[in-house]
C-alpha cells in the first residue's frame, strides 16, 4: 500500500493513496460538514457542503469526492468557505418546504444540524414554496417530497447495499425529484423488498416509517455502515 502525506489546516496527515480528503480530514481530527455523504456507500458530491480550499487550485473542491494527493495543502475553514456553506444550507431551506415544527424528523434531522453548524438564523433567499407530492402508497413507508434535498442517499443505499435499485432521480433543475420504480407509486414497485434502508439513510424527514409523527423519527444510520463492513471484513457483530 502506498501512502501520501498532506497538510489539512496545518496538521500533517498520512493516508493510504486513494483516500478522499473527507476521510483524510477525519484522520486528522478535522470535521468537515456534509449532507450527501453517507458512510458505507459511494460519494457523489451532490450537496457541496464539504467544499475545501486547496493551495494552487483556483476553485473550491468537494472533500468527499477529491482524492488526497502527495503534498496537498488543504484548508477547511475560511470566511469564504463558511459563507458558501451557509448559502448552500439557506438555499436548501428556500428550495423545498421545510416546516420543522410539524416534521417527523424534527430534533433528529441532519439538515437542521448543519443549519446550526453553519450558524444559519434565517435564509436570505426568497422561499419558493414549490408544489410537491407525498406518496404513502407503500404499506410501511412514506415519502414527502417537500422535505427532500436530493442528496440521493436513498438511491445509493438501495442500489449499493440492498441491490434493489428502487430509487432514481428524474427531471432537472426545479423539476428534479427522486422516483421509485419507473416513476410509479412506491407501493406498486415489486423490486422494493421493504428493507427500510432508505428510511435509515435519509438525512431529513423526507422518507419515514408510517405511524411516526412529529419529532418521532428514530434512525439507525450506523446499521448501513455496519452491513458494509460486515460483508467486506466479515465482522458479523456490532
Amino acid at each position, binding site marked *: 500500500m502506498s501512502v501520501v502525506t498532506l497538510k489539512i489546516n496545518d496538521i500533517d496527515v498520512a493516508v493510504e493513496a486513494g483516500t478522499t480528503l473527507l476521510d483524510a480530514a477525519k484522520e486528522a481530527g478535522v470535521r468537515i460538514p456534509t449532507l450527501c455523504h453517507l458512510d458505507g456507500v459511494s460519494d457523489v458530491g451532490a450537496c457541496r457542503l464539504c467544499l475545501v480550499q486547496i493551495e494552487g487550485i483556483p476553485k473550491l473542491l468537494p472533500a468527499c469526492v477529491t482524492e488526497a494527493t502527495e503534498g496537498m495543502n488543504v484548508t477547511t475553514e475560511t470566511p469564504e468557505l463558511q459563507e458558501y456553506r451557509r448559502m448552500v444550507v439557506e438555499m436548501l431551506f428556500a428550495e423545498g418546504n421545510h416546516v420543522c*415544527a410539524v416534521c417527523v424528523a424534527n430534533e433528529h434531522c441532519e439538515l437542521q444540524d448543519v443549519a446550526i453548524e453553519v450558524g444559519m438564523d*434565517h435564509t436570505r433567499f426568497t422561499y419558493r414554496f414549490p408544489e410537491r407530492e407525498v406518496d404513502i402508497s407503500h404499506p410501511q413507508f412514506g415519502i414527502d417530497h417537500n422535505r427532500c434535498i436530493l442528496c440521493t442517499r436513498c438511491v445509493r443505499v438501495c442500489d449499493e447495499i440492498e441491490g434493489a435499485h428502487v430509487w432514481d432521480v428524474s427531471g432537472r433543475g426545479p423539476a428534479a425529484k427522486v422516483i421509485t420504480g419507473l416513476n410509479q407509486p412506491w407501493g406498486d414497485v415489486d423490486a422494493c423488498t421493504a428493507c427500510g434502508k432508505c428510511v435509515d439513510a435519509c438525512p431529513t424527514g423526507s422518507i419515514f416509517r408510517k405511524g411516526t409523527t412529529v*419529532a418521532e423519527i428514530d434512525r439507525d444510520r450506523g446499521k448501513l455502515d455496519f452491513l458494509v463492513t460486515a460483508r467486506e471484513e466479515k465482522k458479523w457483530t456490532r
Partner: protein
Amino acid sequence: MDKVKLATVWLAGCSGCHMSFLDLDEWLFEVAKFADIVYSPVGSDLKDYPEDVDVCLVEGAVANEENLELIYTVRERTKLLISFGDCAVTANVPAMRNMLGSTEPVLKRCYLELGDETSQLPHEPGIVPELLDRVRPVHELVSVDLFIPGCPPSAPRIQAAIEPLLKGEKPVMEGREMLKFG
C-alpha cells in the same frame, strides 16, 4: 439609564411565542426593571403602535393586510426589530397555504366546504383584513435586526437573546440552544 421601550407584536402565528415569553416567569420582573412594555398583546392595552420604540419582538408571519400595515409601522417606529419565532423567521405553518397557489382553495375549504348551512366567504372591507396571496417571513418585507428561531423559542433562549439587549449589548446567536428551528 433610561428604561428600554420594549414592544411585542403578534402577526400570523399561534401566540405560542408570546406564551413562551410569559414562560420567563419571575425573570419578567427583571425585564420590568430594565424595560417599559409600551405595546404588547400580553402586556399593554394600547391599540396603536407608539413612536420611538427601542426593541420590538415580532411574532408571526405576514399573512393579511393588517399584518402588512402593522409591520411597516413597526419598522418605521422601532430601532431594533426582532423576528421572534419560526413563523416570523421562516413563515412556518401559516405559509403552508402558499403551496396551494392562492388564497382561494384555503378560503373555500375553511368557509364553504367545512362551514355550516349558512356558510359564506368572509368579506367585510375595513373590518376583516383580506388575506395576502402569499404568506411571507418578516425579513422579506422589512429589514430585521435579529432572528430568534424556534417554534416556539424556549424561555431560556428568549432570555439569552434579550438579556444582553436590555443592557445595550448584542446577543450571540450560536449553537443548538439558540438556533435550532422547530
